[in-house]
């Protein structure tokens, strides 16, 4: 495979709050290659946003702090470089779009001003040229009547159009990596389909890499080349998208896939994962999934399993992934037929 664009190694980002230490990201590893989309999927609170904010060095500090690990990008470790250099990377080489575009657009400036500001800051062009480029970007992201929209304010646009403006802003400086944190979660499905298609086509024409964060397995299947599944601050499974969906090896991934209804397959009953995500102030010892896992036993309660290569390029963090394999072969439903024993 080609050279890595980003390499995240043993990243730990903690928050020091009154009640204790929130280990939001607790030893995360992954890489992103040029031109690929890495999907990051997991439930609320598992550390997806904090991982991406760590890459951008935008973690609120205090209370947050990158505690350990490396983020290698363009031959440098982003956790170590001075803020001044980081500012050059942000928006130039790496840019980010968020779930709720309204919170990241400034309501008192026109969308044109905001895109132009990014262009002027990073490309050293004059206002006239920046405006031309801004209109050009709005056209590229499919905003109708761009010459008119460029002078409108964010509140005059619909949710889908605001997200297009965010994408236009993020791409205006031709980044190598675009981090998209739940970019379509707040949108309707027909608008989501527009935005995903737009991102896919822009990825191709710009040749950039995308880190796509979502809790929706459908979106993951649609856009990713490879996928990292996160649970409680850790990557629990990591492989290419086809392998993940055909042969999920972690009990959590298996559960997630079978707990959602499918359009093309009818089941009488969904396989529900019992319980809920533990509080990060109160993670269990051993495997963090042991409070909900039907396969948990002995060692799972006191030793954390390592992220291990199961069969060439398929990483899984579970002591019993081979046993899960056997259960799957027998066609049993692991959650409905077992329940959690404690």
């Amino acid at each position, binding site marked *: 495979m080609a050279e890595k664009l980003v390499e995240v190694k043993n990243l730990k980002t903690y928050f020091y709050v009154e009640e204790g230490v929130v280990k939001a990201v607790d030893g995360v590893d992954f890489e992103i290659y040029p031109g690929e989309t890495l999907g990051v999927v997991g*439930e*609320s609170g598992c550390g997806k946003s904090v991982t991406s904010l760590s890459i951008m060095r935008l973690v609120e500090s205090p209370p947050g702090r990158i505690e350990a690990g490396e983020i290698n990008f363009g031959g440098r470790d982003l956790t170590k470089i001075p803020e001044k250099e980081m500012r050059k990377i942000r928006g130039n080489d790496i840019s980010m779009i968020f779930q709720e575009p309204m919170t990241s657009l400034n309501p008192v400036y026109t969308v044109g001003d905001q895109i132009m500001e990014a262009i002027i800051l990073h490309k050293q062009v004059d206002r006239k040229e920046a405006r031309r480029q801004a209109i050009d970007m709005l056209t590229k992201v499919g905003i*109708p009547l761009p010459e008119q929209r460029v002078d409108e304010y964010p509140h005059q646009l*619909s949710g*889908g*159009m605001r997200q297009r403006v965010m994408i236009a802003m993020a791409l205006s400086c031709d980044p190598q990596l675009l981090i998209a944190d739940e970019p379509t979660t707040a949108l*309707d*499905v*027909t*608008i*989501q*389909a*527009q935005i*995903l*298609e737009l991102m896919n086509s822009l990825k191709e024409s710009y040749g950039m890499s995308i880190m796509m964060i979502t*809790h*929706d*397995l*459908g*979106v*993951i*299947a*649609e856009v*990713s080349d490879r996928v990292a599944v996160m649970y409680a601050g850790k990557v629990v499974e990591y492989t290419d*998208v*086809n392998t993940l*969906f055909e042969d999920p090896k972690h009990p959590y991934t298996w*559960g*997630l*896939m079978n*707990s*959602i*209804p*499918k*359009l*093309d397959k*009818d*089941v009488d*009953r*969904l*396989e*529900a*994962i*019992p319980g*809920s*995500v533990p509080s990060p102030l109160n993670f269990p010892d051993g495997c963090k999934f042991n409070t*909900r896992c039907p396969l948990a036993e002995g060692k799972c309660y006191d030793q954390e399993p390592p992220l291990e290569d199961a069969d060439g390029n398929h990483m899984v963090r579970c002591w019993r992934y081979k046993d899960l394999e056997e259960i799957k072969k027998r066609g049993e439903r692991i959650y409905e037929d077992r329940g959690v024993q404690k």
Partner: protein
Amino acid sequence: MAENLLEVNNLKKYFPVKAGIFKRTVDYVKAVDDISFAVKKGETLGLVGESGCGKSTTGRTILRLLEATAGEVIFEGKSVMDLDKKDLRAIRRDMQIIFQDPYASLNPRMTVADIVGEPLIIHKLVENKEEKNERVKEILENVGMGEEYMNRYPHEFSGGQRQRIGVARALAVDPKLIIADEPVSALDVSVQAQVINLLQDLQKEFGLTYLFIAHDLSVVKHISDRVAVMYLGKIVELTDKKELFKNPIHPYTQSLLSAIPEADPRKKKDRIILEGDVPSPVDPPSGCRFHPRCPKAFDPCPKVEPEFKEYGAEHFVACHLLDK
């Protein structure tokens, strides 16, 4: 065929848009604009559509949490619109609602026992505190929660547990119809299945009828017997769920189905990507409301509103293509 528990005929709900210092009504949000459907005893009717199309307003108007602008709602043969306060209270026992947001819909200062027991007291279904607690214990058991939870407060629970409490509260008065307004949308993916399974179990056990409101078509497909698709205040298609997903007729339903990202990376879908956004319900497009976005629009579409009529057995559609 099962009889209708609920009938909704030509229901309209307009919200006034006020402006100026005298707050004069200058226009109306036509949130629900002339819809008709029935819910059969024991079935689950799914109501889907995108944000703002009028799903919640429909649910609330049926329960008379909002007063209808026009039309009628008939529950067990009786018109809900004509009831006085006393009869309305009685009928509210039979029709309960579960809300989307399990965080906002439970009073944070009440214990679980009080939250679930309150409707028992309102409807005078228990004589004293002991009786109430006994009944609450039973109901909590039905939703998979032990009595140790009774004296705790909502903030001590996870989203899924709070939604169970919401379900328990709705169940307390032994209703016939439950309107579930996006009951799993605010929950984590892994927890949604718990609540869906629970709703299905309870339906079997107590013979409940559901009007299940959601924007997630896969969830609606899983839980419903029949499905109604809404667009901008109108129902555009209504039929048996198998029929709807196999043979969608309305161009909006077709594009909605094709837009869903499926959890199968090998599947390459033929997407119908719709142009533009959902228009405002204040000044909806003329003729067929979908015409500015419809890939199949033709001559009559901007001028004449299509009739909502039966296309095949029990398959209702509002689209001019059927007359072409």
